[in-house]
């Protein structure tokens, strides 16, 4: 490692981070307190105290953690379905050229449409309830994971496959002992992108139509002209988004400790 890109010492980092964040919060507080922005925008102290209060005092009918749980349930159902279908479809498309020829064009038709653009159609098809949200998150997770699983199968080292074939492995053995393990890191990369995209999609879906969840908290804040409530929602969205990404990376590090990405 070059000296230039050497990371700073830990205490140095912590101190600088603390200073930077405190300066940021102070600036925000000052702008809110002394300029016209304060008329609409709430300061950091108000937001943080409201956030803590809403942990016990409900916004609407639920406390903030119940809203988060609602959103997370939706994400998990859609994400699990999407990753299951995506992994299977991606691997099948990567392994069988005939299947690729059959499904790739249809997949390419759907892929460029962002999941958020499906919101109106999913409401028309599945109604205002939960199924339409599961469908949207399914789409958000599915398209990323399929692409990555497919790329994973396609980027298997041909030398390894050749070596296995030469030693007498049949198609099924090559697939299960070489192709499947070596596409796992790619699949995890896909899952990582998919969880972020699913989280963004659930927020959007709840903002368009729902009666609970973090997206609802944000949009109801807009309806009642309450920036405090919007910011509480945004803080919750940020914390959960961050946690999901970290958790995904931890799972990957645990399961793929043998691969470069996992390190």
């Amino acid at each position: 490692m070059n000296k230039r890109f050497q990371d700073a010492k830990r205490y140095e980092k912590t101190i600088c981070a603390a200073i930077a964040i405190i300066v940021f919060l102070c600036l925000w507080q000052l702008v809110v307190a002394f300029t016209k922005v304060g008329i609409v925008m709430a300061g950091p102290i108000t937001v943080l105290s409201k956030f803590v209060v809403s942990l016990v005092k409900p916004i609407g009918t639920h406390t903030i953690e119940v809203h988060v749980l609602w959103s997370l349930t939706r994400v998990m159902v859609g994400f699990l379905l999407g990753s299951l279908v995506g992994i299977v479809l991606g691997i099948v498309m990567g392994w069988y050229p005939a299947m690729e020829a059959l499904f790739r064009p249809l997949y390419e038709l759907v892929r460029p449409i962002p999941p958020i653009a499906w919101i109106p159609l999913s409401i028309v098809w599945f109604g205002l309830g939960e199924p339409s949200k599961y469908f949207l998150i399914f789409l958000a997770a599915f398209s990323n994971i399929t692409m990555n699983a497919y790329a994973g199968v396609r980027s298997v080292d041909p030398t390894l496959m050749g070596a296995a074939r030469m030693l007498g492995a049949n198609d099924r053995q090559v697939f299960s002992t070489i192709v499947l393990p070596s596409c796992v890191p790619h699949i995890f990369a896909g899952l990582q992108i998919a969880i972020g995209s699913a989280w963004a999609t659930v927020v959007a879906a709840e903002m368009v139509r729902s009666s609970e969840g973090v997206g609802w908290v944000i949009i109801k804040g807009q309806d009642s002209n309450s920036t405090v409530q919007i910011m509480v929602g945004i803080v919750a969205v940020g914390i959960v988004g961050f946690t999901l990404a970290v958790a995904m990376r931890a799972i990957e590090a645990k399961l793929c400790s043998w691969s470069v990405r996992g390190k």
Partner: protein
Amino acid sequence: MKQKHSYRWLSIVSILAFIAIWWLCCDVLKMTKSSTLPGPVTIAATFIKKLTSTAPDGATLPQHIFSSLRIAMGGWAMGVLIGTPLGILMAWYKKIDLFVRPVFDLIRPVPGLAWIPLMILLFGIGITSKIVTVFLSAFVPCVLNSYTGVRQTKDVHLWVGQTFGASNWQMLMNIAVPTSLPLVMTGVRVALGASWTCIVAAEMLASTRGLGYMIQQARGIYRPDIIICGMIAIGTIGALFSWLLTLVEKQVVKGVRRG
């Protein structure tokens, strides 16, 4: 891998079969109500009509597209122009990294579209609030990618620069920035996708024009044919963008081995 061309007919059959079944079920046999899933012929007819007709949402399809494009491009350009240099500076100067990074990490995990309602309250329903939201969602991938790109600079290259007496600025401009270009371009592409998604979401929530507004209005009056037309337009433009940027990338980024 096995030869691919022999399966081309299968791809064509697949698309044709998909459209044929859809057409047969919806346009011919009328198995679904036109208020849930119209057939391809209906959608094509609506698409052509919508090119010139302003009913039922007050603007033609090209007007909606133009309106969305203008905002998405504006926010995206701002995100790229501010985000990329910031990422490069953060990676190159340790002091900037130490102080800017923590604040950036605070904002990063929030998806761009979660900011929409706040921006609407702060800047009103007009164009500013949407450009700011699009900017935020384009900004994050640009910073991240250019940061990682500069960090990939090889020590040896920097040593060569130092040996020949390059100044710090020369090393940044002539060694680190060219090294980071492939990743910078990736960031620019990711940012464009994010901006396009974000503008659709923003228009669904509060707008009087644009593709997102069009499909949201069409949902209210049960016109899935217009929704699907809008989705086709959104998808096509998104795909067109990423194709164009790939072309630009091939021109701009030199010396990278491509698979």
